[in-house]
């Protein structure tokens, strides 16, 4: 498959469009949500950003940036991480998940780009981002924007083989395969740069972020939690598409991915508490503040998968699913807590997302799921045949 064709052929995993009806009750509901989303988007562009959001001078960003952007791209990093695991480490075992992971990642990044476009006040100046003379290269947000754009471009290249295969351009595909290693490597670099930038953003906020969520170990916490979320996203996606499409579950592969996730979360937790201790903030988490409470809930969620995945029972499908869910929610909460709960710009400012903001975020998610369904039905993304279904199941 795609960049992974070499080992893919060795593992004899073929992908194929799964076909089927495009209009079902599920896609109809999604379509309805997307319709509502379109209305709110129209209002936002017609009447301005204040007409649909609760954003204010104290909280110039909210749900859209934190969920659609920070969390969306963190989940989207799953594609780069699985690509890394598969190609760089050349572990054929992870192959069946690569295409769906790359597709999700692509949709995640497109969703992030769209939401930025809704969020910036003067969206008609957005093209300035493409001109070097407008670039402020020390700006972390500029770096984030660049990374999102480059990551989207790389993902488009990485999923291109799927399209080429569909339309029978095998010569072109082979040529692309020969240089694909460059894109695979570059994708990881960009994902790492972007995720660590989310840590650097906290530094700029300085005293406006509660010390519990301020960090010195910049890249490590955001990077490890991103990898955890990425692996969790792949596992959830694998489980849900197995259920929804009545396909055998890639339980053994997912079990291995979650084992990696378990190690990553352990690193995260050690780094998290070490960072607090080094900065002398540890006593603060024992005070009865909102920030301390969300910190403990979130830390418990980070720790839960470590226990859930222990031993033989930890490899059961149900356990894997719950562990992945917990892992993903923990990573999301970490970002919500840091950028919204622990973010205080001064007395008198409050923020809670408006219905309009929620409609846009939910609409974007619905759009993403809809696009995913469309793609797997029309393009060769999911494995045709299950590689371990014969040997693995009793």
């Amino acid at each position, binding site marked *: 498959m795609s960049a992974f064709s*070499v*080992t893919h*052929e*060795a*593992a004899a995993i073929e992908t194929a469009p799964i076909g089927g009806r495009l209009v079902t009750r599920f896609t109809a509901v999604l379509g309805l949500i997307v319709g509502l989303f379109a209305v709110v988007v129209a209002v936002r562009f017609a009447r301005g950003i204040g007409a649909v959001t609760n954003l204010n001078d104290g909280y110039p960003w909210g749900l859209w940036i934190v969920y659609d952007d920070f969390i969306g791209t963190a989940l989207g990093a799953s594609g780069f991480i699985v690509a*890394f695991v598969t*190609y*760089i*480490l*050349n*572990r*054929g*075992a992870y192959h069946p998940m690569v295409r769906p992971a790359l597709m999700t990642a692509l949709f995640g990044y497109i969703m992030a780009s769209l939401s930025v476009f809704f969020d910036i006040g003067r969206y008609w100046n957005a093209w300035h981002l493409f001109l070097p003379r407008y670039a402020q290269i*020390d700006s*972390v947000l500029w*770096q984030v924007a660049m990374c999102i754009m480059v990551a989207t471009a790389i993902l488009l290249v990485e999923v291109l083989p799927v399209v080429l295969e569909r339309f029978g351009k095998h010569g072109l595909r082979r040529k692309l395969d020969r240089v*694909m*290693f*460059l894109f*695979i*490597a*570059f994708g*990881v*670099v960009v994902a*790492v*740069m972007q995720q*660590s930038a989310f840590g*650097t*953003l906290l*530094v*700029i*906020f*300085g*005293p406006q972020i509660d010390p519990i969520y301020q960090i010195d170990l*910049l890249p490590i916490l955001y990077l490890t939690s991103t990898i955890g979320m990425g692996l969790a996203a792949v596992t959830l996606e694998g489980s849900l598409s197995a259920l929804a499409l009545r396909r055998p*579950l890639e*339980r*053994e*592969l997912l*079990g*291995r991915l979650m084992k990696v996730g378990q190690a990553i979360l352990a690193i995260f937790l050690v780094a998290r508490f070490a960072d607090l201790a080094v900065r002398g903030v540890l006593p603060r988490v024992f005070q009865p503040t909102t920030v301390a409470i969300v910190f403990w809930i979130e830390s418990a969620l980070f720790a839960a998968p470590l226990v859930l995945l222990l031993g*033989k029972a930890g*490899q*059961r*499908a*149900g356990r894997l699913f719950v562990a992945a869910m917990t892992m993903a929610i923990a990573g999301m909460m970490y970002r919500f807590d840091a950028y919204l709960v622990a973010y205080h710009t*001064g*007395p008198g400012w409050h923020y809670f997302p408006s219905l309009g903001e929620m409609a846009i975020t939910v609409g974007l998610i619905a759009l993403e799921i809809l696009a995913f369904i469309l793609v797997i039905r029309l393009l060769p993304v999911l494995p045709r045949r299950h*590689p*371990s279904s014969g*040997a*693995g*199941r*009793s």
Partner: protein
Amino acid sequence: MSVRRTALHLGKGRYAACAEVCPTGATLFGPVALLEKEIERRRSLAPGAKTTFPRGRVGSADSYEGIVGKYVEHTYGSTEIGGTQVLHLSGVPFELLGKPALPDVSPAARSETLQRAIYNHLIAPLGFFGVLALVAWRHMRPAEPVAAPGAPPPDRDDGRGSGGEP
């Protein structure tokens, strides 16, 4: 809006609109060095004594007589967040006004230092990319000519797979 208007004013040889219209000279416009001198002058006077207060621009001829206040020892804005271009000489400690205590280090300077350290001539990202690309390339080569013998699927008979699924 007012910042924008000020920018237009400055272009025409005028200055900050807020300082221009301030009737008591509580807001003064001028280079930081001159403002610091003015602050020093007021501090050197005994509280309660009479002195002249400039209006509009620092050192302006437009001035009036007033009584020197009892000032807090710290000039707010001189060191906060790395030092700002707005200096506050106050008779009341800012803590009592509900203003937050701010660190002397500018967070933006810290992040800039960080960014420049990490992305110094893009050496680190390019090096990282080089290593990854090399590893990826090396893993691509051997399997290219023939597909079958190169990489046997490693997890086929792992033994762990049986019996776990509900």
